[in-house]
């Protein structure tokens, strides 16, 4: 569902705007709509999720109707229409990963983080969800963390413990 907060102001930095301009140049004249998915990825990487004002601003930039942006953002699973944890852990839950223990890993994450799928921990650091096949079936169970989509393979309970500790340290260090 779209989350509407009209009072939120959104500013695209100069750095973002120059990246946007570079992306739009990849397509023929008048076909700037093709830049929509790449731009939404950029905006989500900057703000953590896609708010309605952020999407409206993208629409304005690409000279589209806002609905053209909403219909795309709601179609693709990678776009978040609500805030997530700072580290959003996405575990592959499709067949081949389940043959090697993905369901166990998701259950473990739920217990370890103390939040259900899609919820955010009280400190705002973590959320998790199951996602469909990540095309890494030979290395399962796997999880990924955006916005760079770093990959963690052959997961065990121990490696999940280590990962969570590392991320907590990273957050403490201010990264």
């Amino acid at each position: 569902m779209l989350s509407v907060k009209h009072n939120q102001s959104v500013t695209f930095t100069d750095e973002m705007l120059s990246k946007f301009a570079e992306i739009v140049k990849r397509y023929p004249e008048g076909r700037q709509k093709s830049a929509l998915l790449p731009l939404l990825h950029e905006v989500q990487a900057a703000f953590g999720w896609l708010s309605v004002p952020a999407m409206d601003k993208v629409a304005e930039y690409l000279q589209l109707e806002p609905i053209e942006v909403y219909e795309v953002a709601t179609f693709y699973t990678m776009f978040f229409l609500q805030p997530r944890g700072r580290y959003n852990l996405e575990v592959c839950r499709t067949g081949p990963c389940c043959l090697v223990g993905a369901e166990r890993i998701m259950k473990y994450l739920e217990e370890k983080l103390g939040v259900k799928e899609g919820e955010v921990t009280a400190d705002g650091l973590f959320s998790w969800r199951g996602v469909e096949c990540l095309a890494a079936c030979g290395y399962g169970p796997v999880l990924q963390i955006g916005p760079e989509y770093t990959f963690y393979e052959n997961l065990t309970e121990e490696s999940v413990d280590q990962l969570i500790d590392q991320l907590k340290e990273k957050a403490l260090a201010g990264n």
Partner: protein
Amino acid sequence: MARKLLLTHIDVPGINTFEVYRQKGGYRAVEKVLKSMSPDDVLEEVKKSGLRGRGGAGFPTGMKWSFLAKPEGVPRYLVCNGDESEPGTFKDRYLMTHIPHVLIEGMIVSSFALGANTSYIYVRGEMMPQIRILEKAIAEARNAGFLGKNILGSGFDLELFVQPGGGAYICGEETALLESLEGKRGNPRIKPPFPAVSGLYNCPTVVNNVESIAATVPIINDGGEEYAKIGIERSTGTKLISAGGNVKKPGVYEIELGLPVEEFIYSDEYCGGIANGKRLKAVVAGGSSVPILPANLILKTAKGEPRLMTYESLADGGFQTGTMLGSGGFIAFDEDQCIVRNTWNFTRFYHHESCGQCSPCREGTGWMEKVLHKIEHGHGSFSDIDLLVNVAKNIEGNTICPLGDAAAWPVASAIRHFRDEFEWHVTNGTEARTRNYGLAHYADPLEPVV
């Protein structure tokens, strides 16, 4: 050792860089086509090679290219399909991660053959690291003069861009991919017109899988006839197989088409047998969409002949006793795996990924998921099993794109070959929740490999 064409230098340190790739003979195919061949010559070689689309459909690549319309003054596009999302398949990720320049080189060769001056590589958004790798490889190739204006003084111009997807299996379907590349929802288009006539921005377009495009490099270097010497019948050349599930050594293997399935599973050169000393129960040979086969039917055809890794041999017996090579996503199931649970899992996947355009798929996948959930959790009845067969039959062939078929086949085949396991779930509801059915009669006839 089997011959390798794409992964020849995969173990060379630094092969992901332009410099090392070039030292190992990279970009020779570009030099050859730009200096001594016409676009039609390139097309001829690809036709002679017998290369068939490596994304799953197996349609002859040369023939697909020859359908491309060439009206005067209208740009033509080549779009590479790197939206790898078929459960069980991870070969394109592997190729793009470790040897990205073979794809860039293939893109230049193929774009030249098709007369495309702007080409796109559409990569699923989750593969952000691979997108960065390809962008770096493109920059390196450009610096070396292999991309841009007047490449190697030939007069041929090519701009190459990487486009991220947004997380949607359906965008692996070529017209959904083109919609997505135009910045829209990934709803497949009604055909005709086919992309070869009206594709990206209503211009003639060819969409090819990552591996198909990469394969044009050895085809140009060695000649189409040499390529066609590898393999059997209409299954020529080499194929990347993604081995996953319960095999000892999961990973991506380049095989010569024609390799016996038994050798692929048990040889130490490939999967090395089933993990943890267990026995083989079933195999999904070409990605989740193709029919699942019990161990006895994947190792030998119904006629008792050894099953080979070729388009024809895997399809031998039709859907009654055969399957498909598909995208080469090879998933092995050991004796502890539950076929009902896996079928439910796959069906949930298709329900989740249905774009919702056609009601048989949108509604049917949801119904199948619900009924399978019921059976798996011990609340099913015998009539539910027949209901599943009925729903699958009503989805198949009644949708705009093949996602409907892809959702129907795994269910229909699981019931065809493992009906007793579904029935056991119905008659032993409580037990089905605590233990698995086991091997029954469809076990691997070989001694377990410990």
